Each structure stands twice: as structure tokens, then as C-alpha cells.
């Protein structure tokens, strides 16, 4: 059952990711990106990471995608015109991507430990929100604050960069 779910969502995620790459219309790409994010959230669920799955949907599928779509609409982007097909770019890109995948496969396939079935959790209803929150606010206090500053800077930056005229 888990395997089936895994395959369904994984394939959905990968296919929609391919959509992102291969659709020529930016809006279509953005929509498949949403799909991909949601599928990924589902995959997270198969990994018992409910909190992360929720955050994934909220932040990515919710906020980030809205931002993307907004911008696409704002900029009034059309379908990419058929410019000259750059065979060399596709070939080169393909080679790089292929090379990366083969390196990854080499690593994964050489590790028998990775093919062990998923062990059961000692506490099947583990409260991951509690665990994550606990870690975040206690152990990971420092990065958390750094992230806070980061967000502040990002906010200021976005305002600076996108306001038509600064006052």
C-alpha cells in the first residue's frame, strides 16, 4: 500500500516537475509546480512528516506559488517564443544532468544499507509538531533568530527593490 502511494505521488511529483521544465507557457509551468509541491507534501506524509507536509503546502503551494503567479500576471508573460533551438545547450544540459544522475545512482547503488525496509517508529503516533517545535525553539534557537533577521532583511530588500519610487 505504502509503495503504491509512494509511486503514485512520486511519479506525480516528477511528472509535474517535468512539466515545469518542459511547458512553454509560464503559467502552465507554475501550475505544474504547484502540483509538484502538493505531491511532495504527500510524499512527506508517507514519511510520517506531517508537520513538514503541512508547512510545505502552506508556504510553498500557498505563499510562494501565489507570489510566482502574481508576478507572472504582473509581468504579463507570454509563451516563450520559439527562439532558435540551441541544440548545444540541450545537449550540454542533458550531459550535465545525466552525469549528475549517474553519479547519484553510483552512490545510492553502492550503499546496501539504503535498501533496508523502513523500520517501524517506536511510537506510531509520534507528535512531530511537538518534536519539531521543541527542537526549533530550544536547540535551534540560534539559527531560528538568524532566520528572523534574514526575513527582516528580505522584507526590507523586497520593498527597496520593488517599490516604483522610494519615498
Amino acid at each position: 500500500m505504502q509503495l503504491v502511494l509512494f509511486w503514485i505521488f512520486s511519479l506525480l511529483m516528477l511528472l509535474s516537475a517535468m512539466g515545469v521544465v518542459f511547458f512553454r507557457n509560464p503559467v502552465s509551468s507554475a501550475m505544474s509546480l504547484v502540483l509538484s509541491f502538493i505531491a511532495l507534501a504527500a510524499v512527506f506524509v508517507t514519511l510520517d512528516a506531517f508537520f513538514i507536509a503541512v508547512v510545505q503546502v502552506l508556504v510553498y503551494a500557498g505563499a510562494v506559488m501565489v507570489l510566482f503567479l502574481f508576478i507572472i500576471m504582473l509581468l504579463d508573460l507570454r509563451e516563450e517564443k520559439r527562439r532558435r533551438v540551441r541544440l548545444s545547450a540541450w545537449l550540454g544540459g542533458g550531459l550535465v544532468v545525466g552525469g549528475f544522475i549517474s553519479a547519484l545512482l553510483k552512490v545510492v547503488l553502492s550503499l546496501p544499507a539504503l535498501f533496508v525496509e523502513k523500520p517501524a517508529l517506536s511510537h506510531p503516533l509520534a507528535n512531530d509538531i511537538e518534536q519539531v517545535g521543541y527542537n526549533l525553539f530550544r536547540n535551534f534557537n540560534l539559527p531560528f533568530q538568524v532566520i528572523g533577521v534574514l526575513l527582516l532583511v528580505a522584507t526590507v530588500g523586497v520593498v527597496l527593490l520593488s517599490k516604483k519610487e522610494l519615498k
Partner: protein
Amino acid sequence: MSTQIAPWIILFTPLAAAALILLLGRFSKSLSAALALAAAFTGCALSWWLFKQPDAAQQLSFNWLSFGPDFTVSISCTIDKLSKVMLLVVTSISALVFTYSLGYMRDEEGYSRFFGGLSLFLFSMLGIVLASNFVMMFMFWELVGVSSYILIGHYYSKDSAADAGKQAFIVNRIGDFGFMLGILLFWFATGTVVFQEIVDQVPNLTIAPIFLTVACVLVFMGTVGKSAQMPLHVWLPNSMEGPTPVSSLLHAATMVAAGVYMLARIFPILEVVPDAREIIAWVGGITCFAAALMATQQSDIKRILAYSTISQLGYMVLGIAVAPTSDVAMFHLFTHACFKCLLFLSAGSVMIAMHHEVEMWHMGGLRKKLPFTMLCFFLGMLALSGCPFTSGYYSKDLIIEWAVVKIPFLGWMVAGAAGLTAFYIFREFFVIFFGKARSDHAEHAKEQPAVMIVPMLVLGVFAISSGWPSIQKNFFTLEYPEHVPHSLHTFLYAMFFGGVGLAALLYFKAAKDPISIPLFANRLYIDDVYFWFVNKIQGGGAAVLSWADRWIVDMLVVQVPSKLTWAGGFALRFLQFGNIQAYAFMFGAGVVGLLYILLSK
């Protein structure tokens, strides 16, 4: 005054004079002349005094360069029979020529410079004479070269004089190249450069005859250059561009004889190297004959004398090579110094009278205008041509005798050269002093003042008498060959009279040269070959190398690497063509490459 100090005074007074002239010469002309003369006469007087003294056992010396036993060059004076005689010759002739110069140079520019140069020359020449070791001799050898350069180039504004000086120096340097190598070889074999110490080691050296031969021949190269032997003789005729006293003193009497003197110095070594002596003999003999041939067709009064000098030097070199003692050659050196100097001074006197005209076909009939000069020339000529009972007769014939005994072919050849000598010198004599005056100058020529005539007369006396056995035995210990063919003396007389007669016949009243032999007139084309070689081969080769330096060496070592680097930079720049995706691609390629390196075993 001790015999240890005297040579030092003789040696360094001229240097002091030269230095003072350099510093003060521009203030007063006469001061310069006075300084030079003072130095020469001091030297002359002291030399005569020294000649009378017995040899001192120990001479003063100071180490000029010292590295302990390995290598020490000292400046020290050798006082022996050889050097004493040579001192006499050099200082006496210098004193006379210096005096003569007072008159000769009176109206010339560069008066102080001239006397400065003469003093420097005297210093250098005396250094050669007194040298006790090869390096010291080499040093002064070089210095006479430079003073010769200065004096030949006295009229440096004239292209020919400037070129002649340069040529003399460079040709001498070629000889010095061999000389230096010879010195190095001797030092390498014996560990010393001192003549006496090398001589002491001669028995050890004879076990390697080829080595010794090579070393001697190399050292002889120095003589070839300095004493203008074939094939390095070309500079001497050209050096006649210098003022006549210079030609007389340096290029006839003393400096050119330094080569012979040097051979005499190392005579004990040469004695045991028959192969080297053979080579030396041939060089001397050929030079003697060929130069005499060339002299027969020259028309420049000084050049004839110059070729004559070369020819006579050939006799001396031959003398060193064939005679059992060096005194045979030194004897000729001694007499030659007197009569050749005299001849040059006479020629100078003619030139002054002729306003520096040297072309003898523009002269003629000077016997009435210049009686004293003619007389002096005549005396010198007799001695040169080997007229019986003059000095040349004694000294030259002795060498010819030895040559005939040792190497008959050469001997007879140089005996023939004696005839040529009589011919060319009488030719010159007749053309200058007889016949009609062939130019305005010749018609209005005037005799010279006493300051010039007196030294000439003094030399005239010597020219005739210095060979007389009663006189020469004070200076030399001569050995005479046995078994000389009787025909030789007859032949020599025949040669002398034949030469004189032929000259009289052809030239007594000739207005132009009745015979023309271009081969001799053009000095056997040797000068032309050299000219061609220097200009085309050396000059061309140098130009090619210069081109190669710029376009090949520089290219390979500098330009190509730098251009390659530049091109590399230029090419790399094109990776940076502004496109983010290209950058991302190269980034990705870098990632993949890096991963592969890390993951490979």
C-alpha cells in the same frame, strides 16, 4: 742609485710624464714636450748606466695580483743581457725620436696628446722589455697596442687614420688571443707564469712535445700580431697614417720588434721545440720574401718602408727560428732599429718639406733641396740593403747564413729577398731624390731645422757602424755557422749589386713607374680578402645573428610565451560571454567533474 731601483725609475718616469701630460697638457704645449723628453732622456741615461753595471742577483718586485703559490702575478724587472740591450735600443731611439718630434710636430694639432701618447708608449714598451713573467708582458703588450692605437689615430679626423688605428688594435688583439692561450697553456702545464720558472721546468715539459709545440705556436701568435708577420701583417702599412715619428719609433724600431724580443725571452723554451721553430721559421721566411715583393710596387714613401719593416721583421723571426742563440735575431733587431728609424725620420723630413705629400711620384730631384736628409736616407738605405760593411750587412747576412744552413730552401729564398730589398729601397731613393721635381712642393722644398737633422745624423752614424764587430761584441755574443756554402756570399753580393743596378737602370730618372705588377701593387690581394671577409662574412654573419636575436631568440624566449599567455587570456575571456545559462552549465559541468574526481577510486 742601485741597480734595483734604476729599472723602476726607467719604467715609471714615462708613465708619470704621461699622467702629468694628461692632467696639465692642456695648459702648455711646451711643458708636455719637456716632460716627455725628460722622461726619455732620463731613461736613456739610466739605461746606459745600467748597461755598465753588473747584474743584480735579486730584483725588486711587488705582487700585483697574488693568490699564494697557485697564481701570482708580480710586477718585477728582469735585468739581464737581453733586456739591457733592448733597454738601450728603446730608450736611445726614443730619446732621438722624441727630440726629432719637437721639430716634426711643431705646427701640428694635438701636440700635447702626441707627447702624452709617446710617453705612454715608452712606458709600455719598457714594461715589455723588463717583464719577468708572461702576464706582466701581456699587460704591457696590450698597453703598447693601445698607445699605438692612440698614436696611429693621431689625426683622428681623417677617416683613414681612424680606420688604421682601429685595424692595428684589432689585428693585434687577434694575435693576443693566441698569446693569451699560449700563456694559459704554459701556466696550466707548469703552474707558473714567470719566464725563469717555466724555463726551469722545460725538461719536465719535453715529455709532451705536441703540447709544447702548440703552446709555443700560440705564444708565437702574439709575435705574429705585434711584429706584423703574415698573415696578420696588414695593419702595419696602414699604420703609416700616424705621424712619422710614430712610424719611426713604434712601427719600425721598437714596438714591432717586441714580438721578436718576446721570442728571444722564451728562447730557452723554443730551443727544445723543433716543430714550433720550424713553423716560426716558415712564417718568418715567407713574410720576409712576400713583404719585399709587395714593397717593390708601392709608391707611398712610408709604405715602402713599412713593407720593408715587415720584411726585416721576417728576417728576425727567422733568425730566432734558425739560429742557436737569440742574439742573432737580436743583433738584427738592434741594427734594424737604427737604420729603419733613420729611414723613417728621413722620410718624415721629406714629408715635412713636401707638406705631407707621401706619393713619391710627386717628388723628385730633392737631392739639392734636402742634402742632409738625402745623406741620412742614403746611410740608412745602405744599411738596410745590406751594403757591405754597414750594419745591415753583418746582421742580415748572419741570419741568412743560418737559414741556409738549417733550412736551405728558406735560406735561399730570403737571400733573394735581400736583393729585392736593395731594389725597392734604391727605387725609392732614386725616385725621391733624383730626376726632376715633379710638383710645386718638390720645387720649393726646404731643409729641416737642426732639431730634426741632428738626431738623424746621430742615427746615421749608428746605422753604419752598429754592426761592426768591434762595436757589436759589446752587446751580443754571436755564433757563426760552419759549412756555409761559399756560393752564398757571392750570391748575396750579386743580389745587392743586382738590386741596386736594376733600380738605377729603371728609376734613376724615371718620371713614372716603368713596370707594373698589379699582384704586388695590390699587396697580393691579402688586404682585399680581409676586407671582404670582415665586411661580408663577419659583418653579414653578425647581421644575421642580430636578426636572429630579434626574431628567433627573442621570439622563442619572450614573445611567444607572452603572446601565448595573452592569447590564453583572450580565449578564456570568451568563456565569460555574459549568459547566465552558460555560466550555470559550466557550473554544472564543474559539479559533475568534481563529483567524478571525488567518487573515482
